[in-house]
């Protein structure tokens, strides 16, 4: 263990130190090559100008190189691979796309993804809004918010274990150690293997994501609610509006923009949901989704890069319009930096 801790620290120092050394060393080198101190006036001005030409590229250079390798090149390459066969050697035209739309697994994944899209963003936003409004009114609201917010820090895999424990099934008549089946049995119902019930198991997986993301919606909507001018609410109270009218007719319309941002942010997340499905069912019992299907095609039976790339492209086509809209919104709010 000690040796491992030591080697971990060593590796970390190398990695971080290398990065610091680059920036520090590159600047030092530039100062050495074009000295601006200790040389005559005109030479110093010349050298300063030269430094000014080079230095920005020293600063943005690493970012540009990494972005090119890790994002720009892959986008082009994925697009190219989606027109090639499984080994990435022969051009097959649109065959991969034709395969996708006729493949049962793929259609099933699309169907499930749409199901997720219909339920999860709506549920998170709605629950988040309700909780944000309610917790605003009570003295222990901050504590309540912290606790509801907490699952957001938990990994999807950790959350999957947590919920798998809740859905745990034991044969009928045995002691149920899963909370859900225990409750069902307590009320005289029939215990079920929840995650292998086709169609309905999707909803049991969605619960996990809703449990995680409601806190996100709550926090953002809560800060938007605080921004509502007090006068509009007071005017509504004086006019005799009841709490439901105030909520639907005064509060919701004023924070509509924020609701939309929360909704779309969760939508993007849902389109890429992977960990939960992999750990809970790995796509069995008709619970497959696009991101997990892609992972399957990357590694299953030696991998089929063409089909995997095709699924990636389809995910991107679905994500991009929402992302573009989201970034526009964010830019509008921060004054368009």
């Amino acid at each position, binding site marked *: 263990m000690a040796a491992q801790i030591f080697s971990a620290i060593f590796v970390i120092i190398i990695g971080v130190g290398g990065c610091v050394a680059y920036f520090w060393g590159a600047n030092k080198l530039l100062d050495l090559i074009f000295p601006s101190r200790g040389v005559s006036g005109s030479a110093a001005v010349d050298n300063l100008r030269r430094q000014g030409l080079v230095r920005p590229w020293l*600063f943005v250079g690493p970012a540009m190189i990494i972005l090119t*390798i890790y994002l720009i090149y892959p986008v082009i390459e994925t697009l190219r691979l989606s027109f090639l066969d499984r080994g990435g050697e022969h051009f097959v035209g649109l065959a991969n796309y034709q395969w996708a739309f006729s493949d049962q697994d793929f259609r099933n994944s699309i169907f499930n993804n749409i199901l997720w899209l219909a339920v999860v963003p709506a549920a998170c936003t709605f629950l988040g809004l309700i909780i944000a409004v309610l917790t605003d*009114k009570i003295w222990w609201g901050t504590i309540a918010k912290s606790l509801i917010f907490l699952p957001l820090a938990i990994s999807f895999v950790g959350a999957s274990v*947590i919920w798998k424990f809740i859905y745990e099934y034991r044969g009928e008549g045995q002691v149920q150690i899963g909370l859900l089946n225990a409750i069902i049995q307590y009320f005289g119902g029939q215990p079920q293997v929840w995650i292998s019930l086709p169609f309905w198991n999707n909803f049991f997986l969605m619960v996990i994501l809703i449990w995680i993301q409601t*806190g996100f919606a709550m926090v953002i909507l809560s800060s938007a609610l605080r921004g509502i001018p007090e006068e509009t609410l007071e005017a509504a109270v004086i006019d005799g509006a009841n709490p439901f009218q105030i909520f639907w007719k005064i509060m919701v319309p004023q924070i509509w923009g924020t609701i939309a941002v929360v909704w779309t942010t969760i939508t993007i997340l849902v389109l890429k949901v992977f960990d939960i499905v992999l750990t809970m069912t790995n796509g069995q019992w008709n619970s497959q989704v696009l*991101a997990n299907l892609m992972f399957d095609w990357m590694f299953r039976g030696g991998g089929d890069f063409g089909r995997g790339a095709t699924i990636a492209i389809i995910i991107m086509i679905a994500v991009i319009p929402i992302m573009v809209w989201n970034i526009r919104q964010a830019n509008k709010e921060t004054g368009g930096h």
Partner: protein
Amino acid sequence: MAATRGKSFVGRFGVHLAVLVFVVIWTIPTLGILVSSLRDKDQIIASGWWNSFSSSSQTEAGRLPAASAQTQKDGKYVIEGNVFGDGAKRAISAFGTKAAAPTQYKAGTAADLGDGVSLQVNADGTFVLSSPKAFEGDRGQRVYYASSAPPKFTTENYENVLLSQGIGRSFMNSLTVTIPATVIPILIAAFAAYALAWMRFPGRALLIAVIIGLLVVPLQMSLIPLLKLYNGVGTFFGVPSKTYLGIWLAHTGFGLPFAIYLLRSYIAGLPREIMESARIDGASDFEIFVKIVLPLSFPVLASFAIFQFLWVWNDLLVAMVFLGTAPDQIVLTAQLNALLGSRGGNWEILTTSAFITIIVPLIVFFSLQRYFVRGLLAGSVKGG
């Protein structure tokens, strides 16, 4: 808030109740694995964790000693002993001899097994099996009994998973991945953000546009080409293709557009006068950056650091693609996923491992909640 004014007592009570219900629903799942991870492993499967503070009862089966252990007493053949043997004693409430009716007889009463054979099992586990005829055969009588044990909490599970299930090791691996994968993008992004905000050079506007454009690229897009690239580089130079350096750079790449976007908009908002007076005093850009910009940008750096730290720590996909699953490289999330497959029914291992996995994010969450919230607010535009 104005809306609360003039509301009835019932209405206010309802609000408290509703919030309480939400809090309970949101907390119970996590509480379940925390409590379970501290329970004795036999008790986890014997009763639900919500019963963990009361005695747990379980039905067990055992076999009495074979005919060779019999003695003769008052003209009867008798086998005596304790069903628990030398093991830990529990309190028996009922027993039986058929699997279909394991609790047919109350403890302390004599059960008539037919042919004059009788069996009595007492609460403390002692039993007397007697028969008018000699027992035969080398297999003893099967017996079932319901026993209850007092609640038992232990840290044994933690010792077990940390040392024997590879969780301790993958905890270190996760740290090895996460710390550089958080620090490197901050450094690279901060320098780039400063240059994009305050330095003049050709192509700056185009660069900013490209970086904002890259925000929309989902990380799934990058996996296949990068995997091929890594394999190619690995074979070409004869080095392993799955390395820590590889995953640091991958996380850096996926985090960079968001980091630059976030840091640039903050750094661009710093007051111009400070930069200019420093420049007049003869400070170079490097000095301005290190001595002025970095300290002033602390809040946004902290927000991004927390966001990226949690993102990398909780990531499974990137780790599974770019890092091996050998013991010296597997990260916590991947290890937990592997345990789900191999130890699906061993809840003492799963709950404990899961709790170890989430403990670091929880600490970060509770100690740095303010920055965490801010990072999340900004994080809604992150594509990867």
